[in-house]
């Protein structure tokens, strides 16, 4: 092919020119080494050609593996606290049924009211009992919004219990958003179970 031949000629001519050019280049390079400062830090081995910049990556630079427990000097989580955190993320059996919510809603449904009335009776009979109300969501939507929605569900259950006469001081709430589904399924049946407030008597 004519093209291929042109390439070959071109390459040959280039090669000749290169040889010549390199011959000159070497002289130039030798001449300039002493006079031209190297860009960047000088290399450890002193062999870096002009233009090659040395850069040392410190082990710390953005790549620290965090120790699993709090390292010395941190202001967080003692062992006891960490254990509490673990316990709080486990599903405990409840004296009471979960109450359920509509998608993206936090109002107390009619089917939840008898359950809340039962909880209220228990709390009023058992003075000193503490109740943790957990708010949960289904897997749809984003984690952050669901965390706030779960908070609202737990709080709406809490307010309803207070309205029935449960002392506010006996109640606390926590939202786990969509992080603790009761049913791991990915359908409306599972979602309906997961949109819930869960009650833990302490």
């Amino acid at each position, binding site marked *: 092919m004519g093209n291929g031949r042109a390439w070959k000629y071109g390459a040959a001519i280039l090669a000749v020119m290169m040889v010549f050019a390199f011959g000159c280049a070497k002289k130039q390079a030798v001449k300039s080494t002493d006079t031209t400062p190297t860009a960047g830090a000088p290399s450890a081995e002193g062999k870096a050609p002009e233009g090659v910049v*040395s850069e040392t990556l410190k082990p710390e630079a953005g790549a620290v593996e965090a120790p699993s427990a709090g390292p010395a000097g941190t202001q967080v989580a003692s062992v006891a606290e960490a254990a509490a*955190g673990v316990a709080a993320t486990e599903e405990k059996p409840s004296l009471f049924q979960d109450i359920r919510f509509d998608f993206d809603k936090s109002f107390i449904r009619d089917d939840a009211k008898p359950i809340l009335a039962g909880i209220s009776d228990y709390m009023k009979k058992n003075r000193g009992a503490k109740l943790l109300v957990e708010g949960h969501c289904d897997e749809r939507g984003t984690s*952050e919004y669901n965390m706030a929605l779960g908070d609202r569900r737990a709080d709406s259950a809490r307010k309803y219990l207070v309205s029935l006469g449960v002392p506010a001081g006996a109640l606390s709430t926590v939202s786990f958003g969509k992080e603790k589904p009761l049913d791991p399924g990915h359908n409306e049946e599972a979602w309906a179970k997961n949109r819930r407030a869960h009650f833990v008597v302490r």
Partner: protein
Amino acid sequence: MGFVRRSSIMLLFVAGVVFFPATARAILYIDINAPGGRRMPVALPPFVTAAGDAALAAGIPKVLADDLGMTALFEVIPSEAYLEKILPSHFAGKLLSFPDWKLIGAEAVVIGKVEARGDQVTVEMRLYDSTMGKMMAGRRYSGPARHVRLIAHKFANEVLYAFTGVRGIFDTEIAFSARPGKGRDKEIYVVGLDGQDARPITNNRSFNLFPRWSPDGNTLAYTSFRTGVPVVYLRNLRDGTERALVKFGNTKSPGCFSPGGDSLYASVSVDGNSDIYRVRISDAAVEKVVEGWGIEVSPSISPDGKKIAFVSNRGGSPQVYVKDLAASSGERRISHAGGYSTSPSWSPGSDRIAFTSQSGGKFSVYTVNPDGSDQRLLASGDGDSTDPSYSPDGRYVVYTFQKKGYSELRIISADGQWGKRLFSGFSGVGSPAWSPRR
């Protein structure tokens, strides 16, 4: 410099050009803002290495190829075509046989040499313009062997810069939360743009969620349930120290740091009402910046720090709003995609906001102007695409893709033309946050 003069001699002979630029960087080879043009052909020959370090060296050209492939500006020539073998002498004065590279169409050649000593590694890489026969960039990196991919990313930045004049973001990282095991607990991880070797930041077997980067990239703010209740912590990634920052209220999640890094915007619920607060890093002093009767969450600040995007359900369903922080009123709804729009991410590099919206029974990622105009679908699949986070140059978005319990992180270019899977393997992968520039 000797190098420039050498290339000038080359230029006189080969191209017949009398006047030439003093430095390679003065030439804009590729306009990064004009995609869709001809791609620059690049050769990435195997790196020079001692036999024992071959595995270490083998991955580097692949990382370079993947990084350059993200730009749609380069085309890597398959290695079967290469005529010249790179030798140690190429790093000690011997010049490349540029005609051999031009013959196969390579306009740029990246060569590299890897030397390992114990767990320390030195990687020298050089970028040559084979048309002009000159070195465009040269770097010798040394550091721990586990940073070899980070080194490759750093040189990919140099390659992009040499040809476009624009700094790359290839050495940035993505923080996210995921379940490492079969339990429900979630930990925070950080992974590079190659998606390899996600490294754990937390390991306390509770819920660790919503990682957010400080502007200097040294600190991650996140929510942890490790004491049983949610607290926002600041983790110093350089020395591993940590402190609790947001302890008041009930549910809380960090949204974003202020552009100067002196405060954190976070949503905190008090008595069931979630509002957005600015919390000063130095002393945890608190100021409410967005309030409403319902849920106000997920603040994302504009690059100039003057406006904030957030989610509110004040209109009956969650939607994205923008507020001018200087003005006392005027919160404008900007999402109009569907009945459920959340998780705004304000681009640090352009005036655009990405967010998640539900339509047709699934979640997709949209982008919109801060005034609510020009809304476009960016990422959608046969599952849910959520939680977008812009790259520091605004050219890419990382997001979560989920389908029936399977989850992965994906990256897409902001124009939607290019995309890849970044990370999979854990369950519950979510809340990705793109780091600032290194």
